[in-house]
């Protein structure tokens, strides 16, 4: 077991190292941030002074080693645009993104599971078929366009919900959160639903498949034969069978929610990490781009590592197969 964890841990370190190299070299080959900061008419000495200040005059490999040394000390460079440490900027925006992702996750569970179970128990009803067509649509609709249409309908035409920003926030354990104020809730509703749409479709499919399977299993038949109420059979017995795949998949999908929040945050001007990276990409703010990509790679590697380890605890076959490779 510990050998398995150590091997996976080493693999993760290699992935992070490789990605850091890829990201750094890739990002440093393109664009010229100097032209962004100084006007073209600036004197040559001024331009050279800035290049020296930013360390852009040294060879790329030296810049990389310097970057790694600093990164290990928690310094991922200063934003060219904000003049603040890139890491600090990203960590400041992180709670907003995580709040959005968690809200979307919650919506996926709250809407997805009941709809999926209903479609699984009554597969022939028209309403079930509507739910399933809806889930196909949910897979096909481009997220950003749905977001725009939501703004058009609920913000512009009906005027029910605000279209941009986080609204009023309160401090919870030192973090700013939106979901504890009415105004904040009104602001988070549309972006969270937009981000959740794909996951709702996914959960509907998973719970429908699980419910259909469970309805024919002996323990469900037995529960019925015992004379339990239908609602109890579904809520307790069928539900248990569904929760395992749903929770596993959603755990894995949490990372993709954070990645996709880039799109939702841009549409709804949600002040999270995603909006920051898009702005940074437009401004060629390289330290912020590199820092964001490194942080997100780290988040993903940690999620994947945790899932792998959990799997190997739940299913010993995984680690035996892995050792045999």
């Amino acid at each position, binding site marked *: 077991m510990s050998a398995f964890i150590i091997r996976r841990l080493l693999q993760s370190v290699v992935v992070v190292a490789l990605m850091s190299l890829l990201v750094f070299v890739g990002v440093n080959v393109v664009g010229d941030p100097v032209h962004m900061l100084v006007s073209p008419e600036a004197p040559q000495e001024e331009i050279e002074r800035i290049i020296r200040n930013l360390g852009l005059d040294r060879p790329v490999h030296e810049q990389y080693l310097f970057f790694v040394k600093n990164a290990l000390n928690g310094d991922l460079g200063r934003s060219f645009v904000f003049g603040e440490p890139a890491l600090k900027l990203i960590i400041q925006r992180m709670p907003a993104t995580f709040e959005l992702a968690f809200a979307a996750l919650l919506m996926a569970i709250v809407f997805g599971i009941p709809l999926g179970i209903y479609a699984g128990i009554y597969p022939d009803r028209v309403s079930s078929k509507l739910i399933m067509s809806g889930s196909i649509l949910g897979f096909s609709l*481009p997220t950003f*366009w749905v977001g725009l249409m939501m703004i058009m309908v609920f913000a512009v035409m009906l005027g029910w919900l605000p279209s941009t920003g986080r609204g009023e926030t309160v401090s919870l354990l030192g973090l700013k959160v939106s979901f504890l104020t009415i105004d904040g809730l009104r602001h988070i509703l549309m972006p969270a639903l937009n981000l959740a749409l794909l996951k709702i479709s996914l959960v509907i499919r998973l719970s429908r498949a699980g419910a259909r399977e469970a309805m024919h299993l002996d323990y469900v038949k037995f529960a019925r034969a015992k004379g339990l109420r239908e609602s109890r059979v579904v809520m307790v017995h069928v539900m248990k069978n569904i929760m395992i795949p749903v929770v596993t998949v959603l755990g894995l999908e949490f990372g993709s929610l954070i*990645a996709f929040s880039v799109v939702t945050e841009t549409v709804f001007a949600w002040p999270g990490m995603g909006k920051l990276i*898009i702005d940074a990409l437009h401004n060629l703010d390289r330290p912020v781009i590199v820092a964001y990509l490194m942080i997100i790679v780290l988040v993903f590697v940690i999620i994947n590592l945790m899932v792998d380890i959990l799997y190997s605890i739940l299913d010993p076959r995984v680690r035996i197969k892995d050792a045999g490779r």
Partner: protein
Amino acid sequence: MSDVVDTAAVPPRVETPLQRFAADFFESRLAAAALVVLLTIIFIAVFAPWISPTNPYDLAKVSIFDARQPPGAENLDGLTFLLGTDGAGRDLLSSIFYGLRISLGVGIASGVIALCLGASVGLTAAYYGGRVDTVIMRLVDIQLSFPAILVALILISALGKGVDKITVALVIVQWAYYARTVRASALVERSKEYVEAATCLALPPRRILFRHLLPNCLPPLIVVGTVQTAHAISLEATLSFLGLGLPATEPSLGLLIANGFEYMLSGSYWISFFPGIALLITIVAINLVGDQLRDVLNPRLQK
């Protein structure tokens, strides 16, 4: 006796595999309709310059006085804008036709290149096995553990904008799916007797890979290909919407939608709405065709 003569005179209708495939495919009316829609869209994309009412990128013909006309409006020259005009006075219907051309072009091109690349890599992994297989599949696993949009963001930040660059990015995002699919079916095929026979004939590995193994791995590859192409089109639109995809000189559907964003808050809904509908119809049609292909090509579901 006469019976025998009769059957000899009228040769029995022999169904070729292609005919059987077509019959199976058109069993679902929804899939047939989707195929018709898809073919229409491809036709529009290919012939956009000839069938568009106007050329939206001919500066001499576009007038700022026509800007933000609602659907169905007519201008002074008697030209009707069926779907309205955008902020620069371009006919939206024509822009969508041209946009489809770019969206489909990038999506299909990247899909085909990724398919060739992924199939070659996957076949190689399955055929040689051992260390080669381990290294390739580890790479595939690592890439697939990151969401496509994240990989695309990393690549775009490294490569920059442009049609060629976004195609490269989409190829890199997609190849792993093809490699995994081909490897899985090639591993099954590899243990079959015809491959053994070919190996005994001392045929070169390249010939065995591409002439013997590949044709038998095609069905799942085609299914993944349709779904992936839909993904690629959607991803390209998303990147273009974020301003990271195609430059404004080559506006895909995603860019058209992005251009309409600023006008939407003042009530000009159509500039974003119609390109989105075009995108949606394209993606749904491809997915429906892909679904039916999966059912038809899956031997387990055949009667």
